[in-house]
């Protein structure tokens, strides 16, 4: 290891129940470098960086900062060494202002807090680094990109020289990503060291100086960005050859299954989340909805599934008006839904696989004998799901909380698919899954499509859109502002639509 390295992590291991998250990892970062930590989901990147940031303690190994060995017992210790981590899910207090969030936990010399003075201090600092932010706004009034900048400022305020960012671009539009990269480059120029945790190859190539690849908890390789390309990195990330190409395009039978007309759905806080949506999904096709989270996708999906009442417009299923039907009636009509909240909504935490397998069908006669639940029948059904969908679990009495992300999703999807839907709706079906699990999910979705099921997906990764969808619809501010066959779409076009550009309608 080079003594010019500002960070050295040697022989780090970390065990969590059921998984060896980091196995004997040795890793180093140079001063003023933008270093990408690359790997698929579950490779151990977040764990490793959480150790560096003081959140977890390593089971073995040593960390050296600036050549000195250090031991962190809490994030505070890491902050003391100038290391700050910005998580995918921001650690901001929604009810507090920007200024309050930034000065939180500091200023022990001045017990007294003057809100106006705090805001002025923050504004000055923001100006120094070229950030555009209003310190008196509450965090819950800010956009995602702005909140991320608050997190960065928070770290800079504490004198952080080393900044770790965990999947920073997941929640950003393409334009916001460009803005963020600009900020990072400016900071690196001023001598800050930045580590970016990511699974996105193209972004690594764009922003990083060096890259280290992790796979299954171990370091697979690392190099300067000049010496690698996307193919080399891919091969390092996964074991088997992954065909990163567009999968088989299906031929739609043309029959319209779902038709949304002028659909209006209210959100939780009284505003209109879905304003005027017109969309069709045909049998045997996959329609992918692209868009930044929070533009009405969740409310739209809930409205289709029967979990939220539209305030205007109609939902037609194979010509029949189902707008006023409830969840069970829609299930009967063949609408199945996989929510984005897998273990809070789609599956019941703390209940076992068997109980969860009948969540949407326990009230039908299928599992009832003599008026009571027949656990033998339920058990057989659950075993069937595990077998058919390749779910890895010790037995059906296993609580679902302990399943991995991929197995959870397979269980959810499998349960919904086994009800033989006419329309399948899924929100973020591959979010957080590693490549193998994602592949399994793609396969399931494509098989469903080929059976003639109409499929509507809400997706966040443009790669997934190109991989899966036959047609793309972009959702912005509660409306669909562009629909096109996937062949006509490209990143720039979709990116612009995601930001609100208007487009000529086409179906």
């Amino acid at each position: 290891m080079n003594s010019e390295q500002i960070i050295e992590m040697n022989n780090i291991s970390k065990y969590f129940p059921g998984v060896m998250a980091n196995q004997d990892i040795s890793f180093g970062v140079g001063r003023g470098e933008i270093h990408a930590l690359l790997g698929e989901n579950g490779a151990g990147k977040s764990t490793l960086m959480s150790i560096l940031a003081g959140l977890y303690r390593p089971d073995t190994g040593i960390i050296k900062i600036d050549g000195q060995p250090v031991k962190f017992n809490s994030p505070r210790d890491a902050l003391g060494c100038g290391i700050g981590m910005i998580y995918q899910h921001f650690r901001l207090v929604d009810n507090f202002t920007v200024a309050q969030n930034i000065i939180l936990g500091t200023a022990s010399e001045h017990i007294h807090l003057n809100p106006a003075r705090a805001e002025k201090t923050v504004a000055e600092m923001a100006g120094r680094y070229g950030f555009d932010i209003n310190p008196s706004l509450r965090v819950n009034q800010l956009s995602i990109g702005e909140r991320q900048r608050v997190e960065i400022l928070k770290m800079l305020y504490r004198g952080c020289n080393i900044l770790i960012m965990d999947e920073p671009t997941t929640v950003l539009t393409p334009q916001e990503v460009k803005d963020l990269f600009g900020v990072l480059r400016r900071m690196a120029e001023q001598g800050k060291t930045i580590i970016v945790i990511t699974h996105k190859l193209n972004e690594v190539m764009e922003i990083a100086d060096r890259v280290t690849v992790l796979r299954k908890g171990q370091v697979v390789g690392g190099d300067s960005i000049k010496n690698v390309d996307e193919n080399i990195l891919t091969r390092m990330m996964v074991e088997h050859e992954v065909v990163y190409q567009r999968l088989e395009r299906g031929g739609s039978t043309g029959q319209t299954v779902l038709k949304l007309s002028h659909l209006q759905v209210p959100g939780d806080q009284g505003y209109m989340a879905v304003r005027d949506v017109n969309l069709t999904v045909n049998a045997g096709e996959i329609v992918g909805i692209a868009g930044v989270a929070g533009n009405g996708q969740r409310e739209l999906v809930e409205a289709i599934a029967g979990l939220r009442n539209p305030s205007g417009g109609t939902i037609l299923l194979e010509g029949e008006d189902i707008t006023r039907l409830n969840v069970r009636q829609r299930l009967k009509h063949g609408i199945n839904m996989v929510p984005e909240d897998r273990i809070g909504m789609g599956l019941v935490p703390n209940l076992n696989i068997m109980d969860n397998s009948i969540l949407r069908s326990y009230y039908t006669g299928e599992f009832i004998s003599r008026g009571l639940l027949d656990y033998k029948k339920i058990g057989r059904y659950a075993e069937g799901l595990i077998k058919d969908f390749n779910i890895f679990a010790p037995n059906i009495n296993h609580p679902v909380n302990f399943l991995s992300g991929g197995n959870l999703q397979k269980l959810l999807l499998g349960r919904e698919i086994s009800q033989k839907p006419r329309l399948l709706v899924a929100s973020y079906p591959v979010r957080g899954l590693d490549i193998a699990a994602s592949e399994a999910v793609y396969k399931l979705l494509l098989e469903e499509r080929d059976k003639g099921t109409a499929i509507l997906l809400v997706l966040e990764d443009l790669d997934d859109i190109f991989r899966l969808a036959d047609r793309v619809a972009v959702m912005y501010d509660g409306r669909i502002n562009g629909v096109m066959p996937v062949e006509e779409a490209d990143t720039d076009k979709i990116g612009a639509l995601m930001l609100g550009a208007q487009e000529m309608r086409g179906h």
Partner: protein
Amino acid sequence: MLKIRLVKRENESLAAGIVVAAVSVLLAFVVGGIFLTLSGFSALDTYIQMFEGAFGSSYALSETLVKAIPLMLAGLGVSLAFRMKLWNIGAEGQLYMGAFAASGVALFLGQLSAPVLIPLMLAAGFAAGAVWALIPAALRAYWQINETITTLMLNYVAIIWVDYLVYGPWKDPNSLGFPLTPRFASGAYLPVLGETRVHAGLILAIIIALIFYVVLKYSRWGYELRVAGESQEAARYAGINVIKNIILVMLISGGIAGLAGMIEVSGITHRLQHGISPGYGYTAIIVAWLGRLHPVGIVLVAVLFGALLVGGFGVQTAGIPFSIVLMLQGAVLFFLLAGEIFMQRRPVLVRKEDK
């Protein structure tokens, strides 16, 4: 260097549950013992006396059962609500209202014969308890108003209401000013077992416990409760009407607690009087928790706590305040809570290497 770390268990361990429960009881007695000793009493003698008072003779046993019955009923009622994470602290008030309604039926329809009167009193007791729980239930279901506070406030209102009646309009003119109603007609008495005071309420409690067990495990509604108790979002997704279930559960919970009141006036006191319950509604919460919200556990723990109450009454003659019982109950509960971490996590030896 070896360290012990607590690692989450996959399933709550039954063995650990029993061990923790037993140790909690033991530790509680130790704490009580300290207070007793500091006050100049012999802890050991006191406990022996309590034990004998509760189990030392067939009469003692019957008295223990007598005290256990309302605890079983109220405990079952409370446990139902707790399974849905509805904190019904109002069992005491629901019990009082059940006692009041059943007494009303007994006093004004006393000329009816037992086969008619008793079921009427049961119905009245259940209904009154259910209605008393309805207000907090609706407030919680529709406006998410904290049910802990509302059920609790209504306890005080119910107790004062009964006091108003027994000091006033319903007071027995022959009672020399004591706050109680006239004796009920014999048709209002629950049948008893032999020469003891153990009444048919025991059978009622056991039947309800059995029904609970079957319904919770094997019925569709029991499944809905399991789901809704864990996640309201998942319940919505499953098409379960959460609001309806919150109200239904609270109604039944209150109703069963109301039954506890009914059996007290019909089986034991045969009249409505001040202080009809020495805090059964609150003790029932501990019984439910210690019984792990399971019908079988609740029945068993109720007997244990019935013994505690009987023992506690007994040692008052030795100058020991009845409050010792409350102390022991409270202590058992918080040792149990402290021990719960061992039921959810198991100790694991982890080797930490320092280089």
